[in-house]
């Protein structure tokens, strides 16, 4: 299980930085792109579902596997963002994100640890696809760069929150229905993603 102190530190640092994005006067160069990119993973529901589902899945893994899977997710995310920055991936199939959300949600609903290879593969692939889907959509190269940094920031934060939520509840919850809530969340995400996947295939 990942260290609570590490999570707490990352989350505290993230929230120290975050108020800057909400400030009334955001005249710093690149801040518009950063804010746009940071909001993208929250405004795009497909990305949000995919990120949360992978986080829930990783949270259910054993300590060593969770660390490796989380590392693979971040590495995949960086690779995906780099791919989005330097490549024209405007035709990235929308079903990929739904596939990630379904796989993560389904495994989170099962709430069972999986072999390390599988955990790392899903974590890495999830990060990669989520990163690739964060296309900047900006004319300016620098703005696009800031947007991707913002996207990285938010996706990582959401992912850590999801992993942390599962870890925290697994460690402290004496009430079984709290853990059941996490499994139901995984189940609902998988259900939504499966139907969206079908809709994508239909199109």
């Amino acid at each position: 299980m990942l260290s609570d102190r590490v999570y707490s530190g990352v989350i505290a640092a993230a929230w120290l930085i975050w108020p800057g994005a909400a400030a009334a006067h955001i005249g710093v160069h690149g801040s518009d792109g950063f804010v746009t990119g940071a909001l993208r993973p929250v405004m795009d529901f497909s990305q949000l579902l995919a990120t949360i589902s992978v986080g829930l899945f990783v949270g259910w893994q054993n300590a060593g596997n969770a660390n490796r899977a989380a590392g693979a997710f971040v590495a995949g995310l960086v690779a995906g963002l780099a791919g989005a920055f330097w490549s024209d991936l405007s035709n990235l199939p929308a079903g990929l994100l739904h596939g990630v959300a379904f796989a993560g949600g389904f495994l989170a609903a099962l709430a069972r640890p999986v072999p390390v290879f599988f955990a790392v593969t899903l974590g890495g692939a999830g990060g990669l696809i989520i990163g690739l889907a964060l296309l900047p959509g900006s004319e300016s190269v620098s703005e696009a760069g800031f947007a991707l940094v913002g996207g990285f920031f938010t996706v990582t934060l959401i992912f850590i929150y999801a992993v942390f939520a599962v870890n925290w509840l697994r460690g402290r919850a004496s009430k079984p229905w709290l853990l059941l809530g996490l499994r139901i969340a995984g189940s609902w995400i998988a259900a939504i993603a499966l139907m969206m996947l079908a809709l994508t295939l239909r199109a």
Partner: protein
Amino acid sequence: MMPFKKLSVLSGAILTVFFSVVAVPAMAHGGGGVSGGFLSGFTHPILGWDHVVAMVAVGLWGAFLGSPAIWILPVAFPLVMAFGGALGVLGIPVPAVEAGIAASSVVLGILIAGAARAPLWLATLIVAVFAVFHGHAHGTELPEAVHPLTYAVGFVCGTGLLHLLGIGLGFLTRLPSGVIAVRVCGAAIAVIGASFLFGVI
């Protein structure tokens, strides 16, 4: 056995959350796009009484069967329902969808009324089979939805809340004479389901 006070608080909380959320569609400005899609999906299972009684029955039977059914059924149902929904989205026909939905209320209602304690695998199988019919009905409407993603989110949330409502009612079984009340609920669900099945309603 759960103390009565805790039980009351828990059931009250579930009912409050449920009805608070249900109240949203009554707003004057329903909106379109994202919010319209969510409301449309959310109200689809809630405004259809054939869906309502069946979903409540799933939660009720789960609570009646106790652990682990109480948590397996609400986890398994959305997944299988989504499979049925995917069939509907892809245009793959499932025979007698409406009859299957009505039959789900009849069968689950009878099982609750008869206090049937089926093995877990059988309970899951029964619920899963009926989930396909419910999912197909939702999925057929998905492509025409204003915002398909939020429609899907809405109807999964609506369905899940109905399960929780049933589970909340199912806690009555932990009270003296509560089992009788739950069995009466099961009988009522079966009657409503039969009314749909035979076209009375």
